């Protein structure tokens, strides 16, 4: 991104109230905005700065703050730079606006976030389940969902000791690691 374009973008972004712009590198700009100002910001970026490609919407669950962070990554094919717009919304009730009117790829990401985090996007064209069609538990990517605890509660462990392994062990080969020692990441807890 040339100096001139960078300067022009800074001036453009000043039009939004409560915005904080940080230039991370020559092609990456981080923008923090209040949640209500995001649609206006994206409209400005898309309409006047050429950021027409929505690369992704990422969601981060900050459970200790009681907030979700939504990050909208938009790319400009003209200035070859990526703006990541960060907003925070309350974890409860977890509702936000869809940006599908501006960026069609948003439909997939919003549907995905709805499925994995339970955030509802008002105005998104399709909030049906896609990946976890037969899942009726809580949204699994939320931090309070402990997948290992869920497995221990709902599924049973099976002993796996087939004959071929027994033979191998009898011959003095094969190494069996006891389950409690299998994963050092677990042991550290």
């Amino acid at each position, binding site marked *: 991104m040339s100096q001139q374009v960078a300067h022009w973008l800074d001036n453009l972004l000043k039009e939004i109230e409560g915005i904080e712009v940080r230039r991370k590198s020559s092609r990456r700009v981080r923008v923090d905005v209040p949640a209500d100002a995001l649609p206006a910001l994206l409209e400005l970026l898309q309409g006047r700065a050429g950021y027409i490609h929505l690369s992704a919407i990422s969601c981060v669950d900050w459970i200790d703050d009681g907030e979700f962070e939504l*990050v909208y990554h938009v790319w400009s094919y003209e200035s070859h730079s990526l703006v990541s717009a960060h907003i925070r919304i309350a974890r409860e009730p977890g509702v936000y606006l869809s940006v599908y009117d501006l960026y069609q790829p948003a439909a997939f990401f919003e549907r995905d976030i709805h499925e994995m985090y339970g955030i509802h996007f008002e105005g998104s064209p399709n909030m049906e389940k896609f*990946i976890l069609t037969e899942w009726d538990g809580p949204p699994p990517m939320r931090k309070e969902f402990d997948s290992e605890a869920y497995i221990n509660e709902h599924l049973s462990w099976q002993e796996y000791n087939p004959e071929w392994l027994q033979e191998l062990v009898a011959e003095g080969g094969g190494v069996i690691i006891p389950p409690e020692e299998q994963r050092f990441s677990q042991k550290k807890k």
Partner: protein
Amino acid sequence: MRPENYEAQRQPPSNEYELNFGPNHPGIEGNYALKVKLHGDIVLEAKADGGYLHRGFEKLMEQRLWIQNIALVPRICVPDPSPMELCYSMAVEELCGLKVPQRAQWLRVMQLELSRIAAHLFTFGGHAATTGMYSTMYWGVADRDLLLDLFEEFTGGRVYSIYNIPGGVRRELPEGFLQRLTETLDYIESRLPDYDNLFFKNQVFVKRAKGTGVMSREQALEWGVTGPNLRATGLAFDVRRDDPYLVYDQLAFDIPVEESGDAWARTLVRRKELMESIRILRQVVEILPDIHGPIRAPIPNPLAWNVPAGETYTRVESSKGELCYYVVSNGGPKPYRVHVRGPSSMHAVQVLEKMSVGSRIEDIAQTMFSLDACPPEVDR
């Protein structure tokens, strides 16, 4: 999708019917399904149905150490796993401020381009099979195997090489490897005229692919299409050139484009990209012996590695399009959040749904393969 969860319903007489295209179907790439509504042969409505390959990678990554995830990420996209490793490693390097040594960067480029050729050969094979040309499929898979031999030699793994680690690469090249690489490249190049005669110039394929699954450049931009599919609509955009990483800015390569935006154009772009990848690899072979030095930057004890708090968004051009990782660290021994944006999350869902409407049922498979959709990337 389990049969016991669905009850057959008596419908009023109609010429319209519904068909589950997949998840177990020769015309579907990977385990994936399309629910299509048809009138005769014509598709009236298509709904993508994913989740068959969902393995919960993003959740798993939050439960593993930073270094352990290196073994996890390549499994997200089976045909083209190398960009996954790289994209994740780049994110960790950026968070830690690690500087990757020059030699490691060149080795990474070599791995990526080999992976790209292997992925394209695989796609050609699958695509040819959808038009009934199984010989191309056998050839593609057999020639890809030669590349897998190379992978096995320099990384230790045939498919999931797990060659990158944050800070560099794991191994130095075996002796005489570059010579064997050159021989394989020569062989692949010598095979291309045969591929052209058998597949790319074959009238069975040309007539089927031309005019199938057309999208304009405006539609492609609106739908978030990237990679070869976007370049097939005439826009020369490539992350390697326009948002460069590694040493791609020091390499000479062209970005092939086509204008017509149909299945034919998309395949042709990939065919030309194959040549560009070979060209890049030849440059690597020439330059690599002159670059000496370490192959990885020193990293802390990987089993007790707390990556500094921060967030980053890394992008790589995979064989399917723009691959991105959004990685957040809270300063702990494990990632706080990893979001994988696979290029196929656009191509296999919204784009495929929209492009299938109005096409004939026998063209669905061809449309999907021409988009090079990779379902495991969607499901993660």
